């Protein structure tokens, strides 16, 4: 059934912008799909479900489109005005060689479930799904397990040139490009323009503490600064930006040296604890808060500063949810004196199954999905920020997502979390140790303990 061998390889039309790398031709995007019933509802095309059942079976598929190469695509659920399923259908109707059946995984809020389902499918090494999407922290793990196809032959130096530097680095494992960026997100600083007064937007943590304390004293805000300290992945995201903002690191560039008990790292974690127990600009509750619990007091007008992802901005501007409409600004996260602002890189990437039996078709699909035009479409219709820096300058983006365009400088400084195939184990140790350090106070001891455990994990 596979026609991969004789499929025309000439990367003829890639992306709805008809092969051009200029994303300016968005008019070419077929919009016939918007007439689909319940468009934008997150409801997936029913046919997709049937095809999924067949694809999962790995058995004979329905005879429709028999002249097309059938591939499967598994991704976490994202939606905005449109759904991922609709974008996949755009690809299907844009060409006649490949047909993609889409397998929708749970939403990224159930990220561990997405991870689990992907791992279970990939571990069978039977080529299904042919293409998948992955959180930035799984890339090294999937590559290390040999599940992700190296894409260097297809996407050479171009990738590192066109994409944000942090993303390019995160997609590389063992010197090979094993993932292709889809959309980007990163941690950033939200501030209340009305509480800033005469002060300028803080660039260092020291400045932030001063402004936050002043806002608390004057009664303008109950809380100075909110962040996320729940014993979960988000704690590591916060941790990375504090540590890198002080010039420290968790792992050395070799991925084996653990730098967790270096002076700069310890100082950064001491600072995190100090926001709770010393300067008291953060309530102790941050130790159990993840994204949403920390977001609510901020949009409720109770806090001066918040660290969070880009999703907060739209909510802060929605009068139904927010009491601070028009009073919120966004900036790169502060750094420590002598350090550099750094934000924790988030977002999802494409990957091609190393066991795929339809390599050519899969690559064609990934080319289309990662093209500038498709990225622009994801940005305007699903609100997913492009990973290609150039797409941020598109007039269409400025028109429909003006806020997203202003984030470009934030994304430029996004830093990946430690890149190691053992990341999943490393992060569990980090979460436990840093939570302990923050709750109980013995930072140096907790980090040294974690250092030893992580060294055993990455060293072996």
């Amino acid at each position, binding site marked *: 059934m596979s026609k991969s061998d004789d499929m025309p390889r000439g990367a003829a039309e890639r992306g709805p912008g008809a092969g051009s790398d200029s994303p300016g031709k968005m008019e070419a995007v077929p919009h016939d799909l918007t007439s689909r019933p319940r468009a934008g509802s997150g409801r997936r095309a029913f046919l997709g479900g049937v095809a999924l059942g067949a694809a999962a079976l790995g058995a004979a598929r329905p005879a429709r489109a028999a002249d097309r190469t059938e591939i499967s695509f598994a991704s976490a659920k994202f939606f905005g005005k449109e759904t991922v399923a609709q974008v996949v259908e755009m690809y299907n109707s844009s060409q006649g060689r490949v047909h993609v059946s889409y397998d929708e995984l749970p939403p990224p809020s159930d990220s*561990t479930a997405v991870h689990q389902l992907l791992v279970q499918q990939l571990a069978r090494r039977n080529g299904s799904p042919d293409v998948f999407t992955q959180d930035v922290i799984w890339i090294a793990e999937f590559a290390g397990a040999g599940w992700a196809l190296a894409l260097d032959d297809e996407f050479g130096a171009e990738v590192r040139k066109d994409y944000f530097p942090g993303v390019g680095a995160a997609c590389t494992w063992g010197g090979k490009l094993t993932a292709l960026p889809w959309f980007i997100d990163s941690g950033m600083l939200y501030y209340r323009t009305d509480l800033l007064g005469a002060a300028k937007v803080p660039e260092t943590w020291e400045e932030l503490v001063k402004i936050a304390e002043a806002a608390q004293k004057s009664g303008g805000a109950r809380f100075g600064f909110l962040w996320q300290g729940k014993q979960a992945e988000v704690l590591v995201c916060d941790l990375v930006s504090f540590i890198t903002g002080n010039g420290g690191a968790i792992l050395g560039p070799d991925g084996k040296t653990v730098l967790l008990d270096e002076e700069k790292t310890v100082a950064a974690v001491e600072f995190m604890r100090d926001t709770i127990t010393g300067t008291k600009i953060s309530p102790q509750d941050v130790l159990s808060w993840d994204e949403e619990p920390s977001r609510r007091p901020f949009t409720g007008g109770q806090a001066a500063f918040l660290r969070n992802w880009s999703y907060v901005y739209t909510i802060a501007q929605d009068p139904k949810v927010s009491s601070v409409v028009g009073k919120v600004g966004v900036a790169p996260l502060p750094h420590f004196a002598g350090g550099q602002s750094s934000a924790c890189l988030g977002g999802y990437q494409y990957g091609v199954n190393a066991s795929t039996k339809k390599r050519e078709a899969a690559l064609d699909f990934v080319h289309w999905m990662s093209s500038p035009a498709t990225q622009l479409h994801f940005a305007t219709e699903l609100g997913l920020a492009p990973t290609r820096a150039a797409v941020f300058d598109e007039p269409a983006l400025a028109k429909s997502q003006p806020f997203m365009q202003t984030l470009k400088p934030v994304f430029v400084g996004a830093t990946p979390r430690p890149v190691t*195939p053992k990341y999943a184990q490393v992060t569990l140790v980090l979460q436990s140790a840093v939570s302990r350090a923050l709750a109980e106070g013995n930072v140096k001891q907790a980090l040294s303990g974690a250092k030893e455990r992580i060294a055993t994990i990455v060293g072996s």
Partner: protein
Amino acid sequence: MSRVAAAGGAITRAPPAFAIIRTRRIDWPPLLLLLPTAISLGSVCVYPILGGLWLSLHNTMLATRENRFVGWLNYRTLAADPDFWSAWRHTLEFTAVSTLAETVIGLGMALLLVEWFHGRGLVRAAMLIPWAMPTVVTSKMFGWLFDGQNGLVNWMLRSLHLIGGNIDWYGSPNTALGTIVIADVWKTTPFMALLLLAGLQTIPGSLLEAARIDGAGAWQAFWRVRLPMLTPILLIAAMFRALDAFRIFDLVYVLTGGGPADSTEVLSTLTYKTLFSALEFGYGSALATAMFATEAAIALCFGILIAQSLRRQER
């Protein structure tokens, strides 16, 4: 002795059930009636459970592609793993406290709701609300209600002047597990109350009446008639509750993620993280098997008690 009141005039003292069976030939194979159940349980549970046991003897780790038979190595690692024992203790504490609280509160509710009073139907329906609400909602809802800053519980306690400042329910290692117990008790007490209520309702009124004529007060009637008759179903309900509480996952995962400082890490969350975050399938399966073994021990204790109480009742 029969508890079936609805049998009308047929309430007589039943001869011990198995005396009959021992003396007479069974002329139909009861195993045939068990067959559908055997198929159902076998197809869904036997394969994964045996697979898990087998996997726990390997060092299967997807990230490193290791997959060797290592015998008891995982169990030896487990016995020396402080994280495991800490989670094991948290889980047992949680199970004991929440099962006990649910049994006592559930029994109280059932005793109240078995009596007739105006509006009883409404109260019975209201009692079931916590259990009928979707779990995905209640776990998030408890995050809200017990939020340390804007939570309704702190607000009410402050309004009633029971506390001076806010309590940081989930953010402090001292209170986090206790708060999760409260959430679990709220959510699952109706399960106990419902089963106990059904049990209470089948106690013949004539027995209570007889106790009353003998001059027993309500308190004595409870201890002498109701509780002994209720014991088997009480133990069965408590056993299922304990087995379920031991596998607590959602509440912990949503509310605290196991923190702060691992103070709420239970076996399910530890196993889940090991299996599906760290992808250590071998060691994760050993953890799962250890859970299974602990649960089997709990079930065995209950099983013995249940068998005793049934035997006592049949006498």
